[in-house]
């Protein structure tokens, strides 16, 4: 648990440092992209729906899995669409 906390703290700092000056045009894609990452809870959902005993747990896990997958798959795809648009606009000139 302590180690996990350690990891948590370090990751937090890293998150802070990573995002320094983001051009405002990228605010939305960045948000959307990191939203997709937050779908990492999919891993938890998989574990819950696949490895947990008890009906209740599995049902909850299953719903969680669907939602998390939507978040991940949809999130990445939307972000990619946004960025593709942005790119082609830049490519124009």
């Amino acid at each position: 648990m302590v180690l996990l906390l350690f990891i948590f703290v370090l990751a937090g700092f890293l998150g802070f440092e990573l995002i320094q000056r983001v051009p405002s045009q990228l605010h939305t894609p960045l948000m959307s992209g990191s939203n997709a990452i937050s779908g990492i809870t999919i891993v938890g959902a998989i574990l819950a729906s696949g490895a947990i005993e008890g009906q209740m747990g599995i049902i909850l896990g299953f719903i969680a899995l669907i939602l998390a997958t939507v978040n991940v798959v949809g999130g990445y795809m939307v972000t990619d669409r946004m960025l593709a648009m942005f790119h082609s606009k830049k490519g124009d000139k």
Partner: protein
Amino acid sequence: MDLLINFAYIVASILFIFGIKMLGSADTARRGNQISSLGMLIAVVAVLLTSGMNYTWIIAGLAIGAVIGAVTAKRVQMTGMPELVALFNGFGGLASLLVGWAEYAARPEPSAETGAAVILAILIGGITFTGSLIAYLKLSGKMGGNATLFGGQKALNALIALAIVGLGFVFVTTHAPWALYALIALSLLLGVLAVIPIGGGDMPVVIAILNSFSGLAASAAGFVIQNNVLIVAGCLVGASGLILSIIMCKAMNRTLGNVLFGSFGAATGNTGQAVEGEMKAATAEDAYYVLEAAQSVVFVPGYGMAVAQAQHAVKELAQILESNGAEVRFAIHPVAGRMPGHMNVLLAEADVPYEQLAEMDDVNPIMSTVDVAIVIGANDVVNPAAVEDESSPIYGMPIIKVYEAKTVYALKRGQGAGFSGLVNTLFFRENTRMLYGDAKDTITTLVTQFKD
């Protein structure tokens, strides 16, 4: 096998880190997103290797979720993306809540630490879910975008917070299911209450915050199931989301607190006269991105350029824009400045080639094809009242019709009027953004942006 899985988690985390970093810069953003999705794939594959899994449910869940996600993502209109992101975000939060709940359902007697983690996952996940839903509704127009306020809201929120702390304590000590259910209900309620009072215009910041929350929720879920990739990825998102929302607030000239709890509704410029619309401030950074992509740019200098002695900086910006491929013109209004030819003197001093100087009559017909018009300390000479408002004292004076350009940046120090003392409705238009500050400073900042 476990070692492999853990190693995969590390790789996934590293990919997330790179992904987020690359998302922060225009050139690498798309690759960054792909790299982070690769990280996600690795994490998912790794967890699937866990022994003793029941794949039926998993595959079903993955399939259903993937189809829904992919279809919505494909279908959505460009304009609908922000609200979709909000919705997805809400799903993520709910998923974290459910993971926490499921874990409790499976092992209903958690240790204190795990219990606390469960509560956090549920709480943060719940807030994220309903908060995101409200944001989605507001953004998609299914709910009034205005701030919804009612009396005693603050008191109510405080009460709920108190109740949550109490229930949390009860749950950790007694593991009573009812406490859990109550917590779930309250957290969902709190999400609604927190977002409802915030105006539609501030929703992007709210989403950024909720995004940060959903990361934290995932992280909390990670603590529940003791999974470090969840913790790392969740916390990365949590922290970067927070920073991002702060950056966004800065870009809006607000503080985070002000957005979340401040006075709501659209701030109108204190112009003393009723004008429709509001003056929208932007930063040089915003302007940079628009200018960077602009094909044709028209500068409209006025007396403020003379006062700021910004001509040299303007010349430099014009040169940069040209070498960036844009067509650059200076539209000189005959009465700009305080003497005939005032702008000419200054621009000649800065060695702006005469070829770039355009007369009002030459530039007005093509104004609607101009991507960006940059108004540098000019006011009266671009005041649409001269064309539109018959009651205006300057009605009938020819002006440079910058308002027809796709985007207008107006550089001024503040809300000062021009020589004629009139309110300028240009500054309140939909396509106008104010860049406040001394014109020379603003231009120099823009130049710096281009150089970085």
